[in-house]
């Protein structure tokens, strides 16, 4: 039997058999940065036991107990609590509306990189691909790198006090986070069904609808629900700059040293977050 010399697979794909030094290097860098930050951030547990720190804590806790449970106060807090939920729902809705289109554009496998684009014309790959991709990525980074608190501050200046600036702040900041994470989810999906649809002549949106959306939906929904939980907490904080909700009440009570009211308000916030957590867990379980 004649043997034709053939290139064994090992020769054709040069194996990276050498042990990489990268893990050790990374561990060293992480350790160094923790040590360095520990000093810079002035982390020092001894401070708890200096002077009257413990006494201050005790006074604060004593001042908060018992929580303010009068019917009048609770009645007054009902509206802000509801408003907090409404702000988070509307804010998350706007964030989704921003996150979906920008997230799709920011998905490189969909816009310019990889097998779906190997045969695309140069114009298609740049003008309709890389340029919108880069712009979407830039917009998403700006949206999420400015904290929602700062966004709220700016929107209060722009549209006045009330829940609306809170909604806008959450919408923009969380839109940036959702878009980024959506694009990461989409890029991690199995590319084979996408290649199949593309090879059969499906348009880009056709590939998204029949290949990406069904694969990514559970992750996308789960992450969006998680962000909604965060939005409840954030909408409470945003009240501090005058963007409505429970936060405004917490800030008011704190400024008047009514710590028993603060305790009640925090308990209400806890109940809201726990309720959203429960609801989203149920939805995710159904979707899996």
């Amino acid at each position: 039997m004649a043997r034709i010399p053939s290139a064994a697979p090992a020769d054709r794909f040069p194996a990276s058999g050498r042990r990489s030094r990268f893990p050790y290097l990374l561990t060293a860098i992480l350790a160094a940065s923790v040590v360095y930050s520990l000093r810079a951030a002035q982390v020092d547990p001894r401070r708890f036991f200096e002077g009257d720190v413990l006494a201050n804590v005790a006074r604060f806790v004593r001042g908060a107990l018992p929580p303010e449970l009068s019917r009048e106060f609770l009645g007054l807090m009902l509206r802000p609590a509801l408003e907090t939920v409404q702000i988070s729902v509307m804010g998350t809705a706007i964030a989704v509306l921003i996150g979906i289109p920008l997230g799709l554009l920011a998905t490189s496998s969909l816009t310019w990189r990889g097998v779906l684009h190997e045969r695309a014309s140069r114009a298609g790959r740049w003008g309709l691909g890389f340029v919108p991709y880069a712009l979407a990525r830039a917009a998403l980074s700006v949206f999420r790198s400015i904290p929602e608190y700062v966004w709220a501050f700016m929107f209060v200046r722009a549209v006045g006090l009330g829940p609306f600036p809170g909604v806008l702040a959450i919408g923009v900041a969380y839109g940036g986070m959702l878009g980024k994470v959506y694009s990461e989810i989409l890029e991690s999906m199995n590319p084979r069904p996408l290649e199949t649809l593309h090879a059969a002549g499906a348009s880009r949106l056709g590939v998204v609808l029949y290949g990406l959306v069904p694969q990514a939906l559970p992750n996308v929904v789960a992450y969006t629900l998680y962000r909604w939980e965060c939005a409840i907490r954030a909408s409470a904080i945003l009240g501090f700059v005058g963007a409505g909700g429970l936060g405004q009440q917490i800030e008011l009570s704190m400024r008047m040293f009514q710590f028993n009211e603060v305790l009640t308000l925090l308990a209400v916030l806890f109940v809201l977050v726990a309720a959203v957590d429960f609801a989203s867990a149920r939805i995710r379980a159904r979707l899996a």
Partner: protein
Amino acid sequence: MYELSGVRKVFADGSVALDGISLTVGRGEHVAFIGPSGAGKTTLFRILNLTLRPTAGRLVFEGQDASGLSDAALRRARTRIGTIYQQQNLVGRLRVVHNVLAGNLGRWSTLEAAASLVRPRSAGQAATALERVGIPEKLYARTDELSGGQQQRVAIARVLVQDPDVLLADEPVSSVDPSLAVTIVSLLRDLSHESQKTLLMNLHSVELALHYFPRVVGIRDGRVRFDLAPEKVSGELLAELYAGDRDEEQALERFQDGKNPFGGACRPLPGFGA
């Protein structure tokens, strides 16, 4: 249908998958491609279905040089080429009906495509296609609940809905058991025969290739080693084609000893006992 001259494909990592393939396939022809794994057969099919761009050489599809096609013309050309892959490449979370109707995506507008996900636009069409591949009862099943063989049938049903002029089947039976392999290969052959489609198939199994195809192309190291009618494919040619590939050599020996894994469905190779 296809004219290839000197087609080369070098991947980004420098590996040479195809090293000068020249080949002409006429309309309505049935051609099997065989060769050891890693020979470049899958890459060749991804070039033939206009997914990959050759590094060098010319690919002419239906009289048009593929490198000169605009994005829109490429998309139109792709709708005329149906591909069935080794892995089924279906979306498991979708119902079968949607995976089958995805064959319409080259025709449907985005709006129609989206609406069909809510309410299937032509469930009847999907049902007919599933009937032809023998699993009509799975229309509304979730795709990931089907067995591997059933999923391969769904992939074939999708290509039926697409109704292309060329059918490329890349190892369509490597993940199913031998009796089903025979069924699927003959099904693909009969379907493309009825509607006069060109059928190109990558096959792991020499037996199936020699039995079901009037033309067999042997590929090794990215080159065409032979391009012959099955009765001209000799034992030496096959031994040469698979030399150095231990699994393949063993399979070939079993085959030459007359132990045909496909049983009576395939005749033995000429010149090899039994």
